[in-house]
């Protein structure tokens, strides 16, 4: 019992330490390092967004990039064509992403998860072409240039706030009645339904929340990058990375996407520039290994080890 509470205290100490480091990072860093850290934060947020849906309901989304892209383009268009300031534009982008998710979820979430997964792949492709076709507003294939703002500390802190928001929701998913309902759906949808959970509306709400987060991060990305193209904003490889980061770290946990995203974004930074294809082969091998040998991800693996060593809380109490 004492040992276990000791572990809990040290976990909190570690978390507090990381938060302080994250808050102070821009004081010590600039240029490349700050940019890299902002990217890692972006990936933590995106993997966290996918985790909110896939990790908690078991519905795999092969088109999650659609919400990132929607958020980025709505933000871009509102700032450029309507002259809205950044924050209201970003917020609108996130709301639009959430609304679209809700509408798309209505037919696709009634069926087996496999239907949802591939229907979303088709949806992301369709959204990319919508942006390409609406070239009067979006600039089509030529891209969209936003007002340039080069305060990189601002983007770091905005991304950090978005990540904190994502983590808070994930934490809430883990503790609330709503979160338990979602986990019940993941484990056995029929049983959840029979137990009085309105499975359909729970799934839709989780989907909309998850899309809101992706849209919000897309908005920050848009202002940060200042130049958007449909190929970048709706790139299927973004979805690929979100999925792998969430599952490698441990889907359905708070820490999973943080660990997975940090790990993979770091590997990518080393390998991507010179060995893009090799990097993606490694990513594919990681997926296969995770599915076959560590289906609960790094977090699941570590917590199993801890439970083995110190016993479950319930047993020792």
């Amino acid at each position, binding site marked *: 019992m004492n040992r276990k509470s000791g572990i809990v205290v040290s976990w909190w100490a570690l978390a507090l330490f990381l938060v302080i480091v994250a808050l102070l990072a821009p004081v010590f860093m600039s240029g490349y390092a700050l940019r890299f850290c902002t990217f890692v934060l972006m990936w933590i947020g995106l993997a966290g967004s996918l985790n909110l849906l896939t990790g908690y309901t078991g519905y795999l989304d092969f088109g999650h990039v659609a919400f990132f892209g929607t958020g980025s383009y709505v933000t871009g268009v509102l700032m450029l064509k309507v002259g809205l300031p950044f924050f209201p534009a970003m917020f609108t982008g996130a709301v639009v992403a959430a609304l679209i998710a809700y509408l*798309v979820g209505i*037919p696709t979430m009634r069926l087996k998860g496999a239907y949802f997964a591939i*229907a979303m792949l088709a949806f992301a492709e369709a959204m990319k072409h919508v942006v390409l076709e609406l070239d009067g507003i979006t600039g089509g294939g030529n891209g969209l240039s936003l007002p340039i703002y080069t305060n990189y500390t601002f983007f770091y802190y905005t991304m950090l706030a978005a990540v904190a928001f994502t983590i808070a929701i994930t934490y809430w998913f883990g503790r609330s009645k709503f979160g338990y309902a979602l986990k019940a759906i993941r484990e056995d949808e029929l049983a959840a339904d029979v137990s009085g959970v309105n499975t359909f509306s729970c799934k839709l709400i989780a989907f909309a929340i998850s899309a809101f987060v992706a849209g919000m991060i897309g908005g920050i990305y848009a202002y940060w990058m200042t130049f958007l193209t449909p190929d970048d904003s709706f790139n299927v490889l973004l979805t690929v990375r979100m999925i792998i980061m969430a*599952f490698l770290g441990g889907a359905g946990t708070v820490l999973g996407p943080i660990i997975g995203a940090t790990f993979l974004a770091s590997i990518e930074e080393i390998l991507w520039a010179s060995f893009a294809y090799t990097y993606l082969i490694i990513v594919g091998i990681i*997926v296969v290994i995770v599915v076959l040998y560590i289906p609960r991800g790094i977090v699941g693996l570590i917590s199993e080890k801890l439970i083995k060593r110190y016993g479950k809380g319930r047993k020792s109490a």
Partner: protein
Amino acid sequence: MLLQVLLNGILIGGIYASFAVGFSLIFGVLRIVNIVHGEFIMLGAFITYWLYSIFGIDPFLSLPVSFILLFAGGYLLQRFVINRIIEAPEIMSLLLTFGLSLIIVNIALIVWKGDYRLVNPEYAGANLELGTLIIPYIRLATCVFALLAVGGLQFFLQHTNTGRAIKATSQSKDGARLQGVNPARIYAITFALGAAITAIAGSLLSMSFSVFPAMGGDYLLFSFFIVVVGGMGDLPGALVGGFILGILQSLVTNFIGAGLNYIVIFLVLYIMLITRPAGIFGRGLIE
């Protein structure tokens, strides 16, 4: 003009049907949505391209090679990799086949680079002219071969012991096991057959469309669209779905604009999933 557009759609629809049948067969028996499906098409297309460009072998003669190689590859893949998670939640098979797809596409990108290639035999330009209608011989022949492959598969399923064991397993795995059928073996054969017929479709596609490592993604989407329209696991439905997609694409490309193809595909998919999730004939699996 309209007649010509419809005809073009039908000719390509036959090939679409043949790879969708592979997708539907695997789903109907193994109950997994196979994300590697598009890569089977790509591999079939590259086998034909290689045999043609290096050894000068006629593309139609490469069909048996595609069939045999992908049959063997599919068998091994199912037996030693996918079969390990066949009882796991469906998200695991989606993730696993997705990981395999990443590996295959990117190995192909290293080996073949991202260039677009064409299989272009001498007779590629020859046409049959019926009044104002123009029918390229090669399109006609590829469509006929695709339909023969679908017919052959259907015959195999209905008139051989292994085929009947496959059908029995899809209806009831435990029931089939009680009759002495080994599900693991049937799963591997089914997956192999699905991969092989899909590879033939890929070989046929290579004679009319460009061949490149990432070509599979679009065809995976098309396969999914077709089996949703035709009904998941319903092979005759996949045939009809293939023709519907071929005609739809031909109409959209000619009369509205090629850029709208994906938008129309998604809208039709969306409407189908709301109104007829079990396919137009209502015979698909939707549990």
